[in-house]
C-alpha cells in the first residue's frame, strides 16, 4: 500500500502507543482518524528516546513500564487497518526494538498488519541499505527525516531513498511543542523541493491551527505529535479519545474553511 494525503495540508498524527494503555491507544487512534488525520504515526515506546523532548519521553516511559512491545503496536495497526481501510499507517520507532524482533520478522509482520511505511528515528540514509531491501520485499515504504542542518548533498540522498513522504524537521532540536514554527522550516522545505517530488510533511513544534495554516503555505502536510501526547497525558483514559478528536478537528477547521470551494 502507499501513503497518500486526501487534503491540503495533509495531517499526520503521532501517538505513543501504549500510553496510557493499548485499549485507549486504539480508541484515540480511531478518534484521530475520524477527526481528519490522513496518516497515523504509531510510536513504538523505547527506554532511551534520545531524539525526544520531555513529553514524549514521559509517554514512552509509561508505555514501556506497562509492557507495550513492538508486536503490540503491529497488532494495533492490524485492527486499525480493518476498521479504517484508507488511513495511512506508519510504524515510528527507534532502531533497537526492530533489530531485536529481527528486521525480516518485523517487516513480514508489519506487511501482514497492513502497515504502509516505517520511520526509524535513529537510522540515517547511509546505514539503511539492508533495511530498505527488506522493507521493499514486504512492500513497506521507508520514510526518512530531513533536518535544517542537513546540507544539500544529504537532502539529495534522503530524497533518493525515501518513499511515501519525507519528514522535514522544522527546527534544530528534539520533539516538543513551541510558540512559533521556526524560520528554518520554510528554507528547509524549499531546499528539499529541488530534490524530490514526494510530499513533504513538516513536524516538530506544530501545535495549533495557526501553525497549521502557516505551514500549509509551503509544505504538503503537517505532523502533530507532542501537543497530542501532552493532551493525552493531561486527560483521563476515558476522556482522551474525545479530547484528541476535538483537538484535531480544531487544527483542521480554519484550513477547511480557507480551502473550501465556494
Amino acid at each position, binding site marked *: 500500500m502507499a501513503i497518500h494525503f486526501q487534503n491540503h495540508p495533509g495531517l499526520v498524527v503521532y501517538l505513543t502507543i501504549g500510553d496510557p494503555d493499548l485499549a485507549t491507544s486504539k480508541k484515540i487512534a480511531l478518534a484521530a482518524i475520524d477527526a481528519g488525520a490522513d496518516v497515523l504515526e504509531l510510536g513504538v515506546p*523505547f*527506554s*532511551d*528516546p*534520545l*531524539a*525526544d*523532548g520531555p513529553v514524549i*519521553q514521559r509517554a514512552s*516511559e509509561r508505555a*514501556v513500564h506497562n509492557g507495550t*512491545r*513492538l508486536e503490540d503496536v503491529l497488532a494495533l495497526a492490524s485492527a486499525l487497518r480493518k476498521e479504517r481501510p484508507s488511513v495511512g499507517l506508519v510504524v515510528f520507532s*527507534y*532502531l*533497537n*526494538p*526492530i*533489530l*531485536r*524482533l529481527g528486521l525480516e520478522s518485523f517487516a513480514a509482520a508489519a506487511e501482514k498488519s497492513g502497515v504502509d511505511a516505517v520511520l526509524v*528515528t*535513529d*537510522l*540515517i540514509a*547511509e*546505514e539503511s541499505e539492508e533495511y530498505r531491501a527488506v522493507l521493499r520485499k514486504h512492500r513497506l515504504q521507508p520514510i*526518512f*527525516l*530531513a*533536518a*535544517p*542542518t*542537513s*546540507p544539500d548533498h*544529504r537532502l539529495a540522498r*534522503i530524497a533518493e531513498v525515501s518513499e511515501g513522504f519525507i519528514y522535514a*524537521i522544522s527546527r*534544530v*532540536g*528534539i520533539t516538543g511543542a513551541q510558540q512559533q514554527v521556526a524560520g528554518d522550516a520554510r528554507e528547509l522545505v524549499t531546499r528539499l523541493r529541488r530534490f524530490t517530488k514526494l510530499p513533504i510533511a513538516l513536524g516538530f513544534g506544530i501545535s495549533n491551527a495557526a501553525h497549521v495554516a502557516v505551514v500549509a503555505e509551503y509544505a504538503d502536510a503537517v505532523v502533530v505529535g507532542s501537543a497530542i501526547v501532552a493532551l493525552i497525558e493531561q486527560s483521563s483514559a476515558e476522556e482522551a479519545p474525545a479530547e484528541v478528536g476535538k483537538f484535531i478537528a480544531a487544527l483542521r477547521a480554519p484550513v477547511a474553511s480557507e480551502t473550501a470551494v465556494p
Partner: protein
Amino acid sequence: MAEQNRIELEMPPVATVPGRFDAYGGRYVPETLMAALQELEAAYAEAQRDPAFSSELAHLLHHYAGRPTPLYFASRLTESLGGAKIYLKREDLLHTGAHKINNCLGQGLLARRMAKRRIIAETGAGQHGVATATVCALFGMECIVYMGQEDMRRQELNVYRMRLLGAEVRSVSTGSATLKDAINEAMRDWVVNVRTTHYLLGSVLGAHPYPTMVRDFQRVIGVEARRQILEAEGRLPNAVLACVGGGSNAIGAFYEFIPDRNVRLIGVEAGGRGPALGEHAARFQGGSPGVLQGTYSYVLQDDAGQISSTHSVSAGLDYASVGPEHAALHDSGRAEYVSASDESALQATVRLARTEGILPALESAHAVAEAVRIAPAMDRNDILLINVSGRGDKDMGILARELKLQGA
C-alpha cells in the same frame, strides 16, 4: 625536550577512519546530528594531517597532564600472590586522576579548531566530567556536564570539583539516573545546540567518528606501556588487563598490543551483585548485539529490545553497552572479556592499597581483581600488565560505606 619529542613520535596519525569494526559501530543518530558528525570527522582528519596539532597535543600531554606515566613493578603485590610478575601502568598519576584527560585534551584542541566554544559532556564516575571541566578551564570554554542523579550522589566530590572548575553540572533524573541517561540528555542538548556546541564524548562509544577518535587519543597508554615493558623486562607481557565500561582505557591499553598475538588482552567488566539482568554491567555475558546511543554493539536488553538497567559499585562501569571495537575484538577472539564482582573489586582495592600504597579507582580495581585471581596459578617468570586507569580518591565515601573499616 627529548621526552617531549619522543611522545610526539609515538602519536602517529592514523591514516584511515573506518567507522566500522567488523559488524559493529556505524552511525545510528537522528539526522539533525549528521552534519555535526561529518564536520567533526573532517576536522579530525585534517588535524591528523597537521603536525602543529599533534605537537601541541604532545606538549600538553607532557607538560600539563604529566605523560609519560610510569610503568611500575608491583613487587609486594606480586610477592603476596606468589605467581606472575605484576606491572602497573600508572594512569592514576595523570593530572585530574585518570586516563580521561588524554582524550579531553585531544577533543578540546579539536573543538578549538572548529571554533566551538560551548562544550557538553556526560559523566558517570565524574572523572570524564572533571577532565572536561579542566580542559574547558584551560582553553576558556563554556562547560556543561550531564550527570545522573544517582551518580551525583555517589560521586559527590567530583561534582564539587567540576563546579569549582567553572563547569555547570546538570542533574539527570530520567531512567536509571546513571551514565546512560546522562548520555541521552547530552545528545538531546547536542541536537538542540549542534551549531555552536561540541559534544566531548568520554569513551569509545557513540556514532562514528567517536569510537575511532577517542581510541586514537587513548592509544598513547599502550604505546608507552609496550615500550616500557620492553625496557624493563626485555619482552612483552603474557597479558594486558584493563577494566571495561565504555572501554576507552582498555582500548587505549590494548591497541598497540593487538598485533602481538602471544599477548592476551583481558577486559574486565562489572560483575556487580550477580548474573541476573539488572544486577551487573557484563555486556559480553548477558548482552546481545543492538543499537544504543549511536552505535551497534553488545547491549544489555530485554526480549522486547528495551535497554536494561545495570548495576556496579563503580559508576564508571555502570553502562548497558560497550565500545564497538571491543565487540569486534570479542567476536574475533583477539581479546577476552571476563567480569569481576563488586565484592572482588572492593577487596582488590584494599589489597593494592595495603601492598603497594596505591589506591586504584573502583573501576580500575576490577582489572586488579582479575589479576589477583589469575596471577597465583601463573609462572613466576610470567608478566601481567594492569592498566590502573584512575585513582580512588573519588571513591572514599563508597569505600568507607562498603568496607566498614573499623580501626583497621
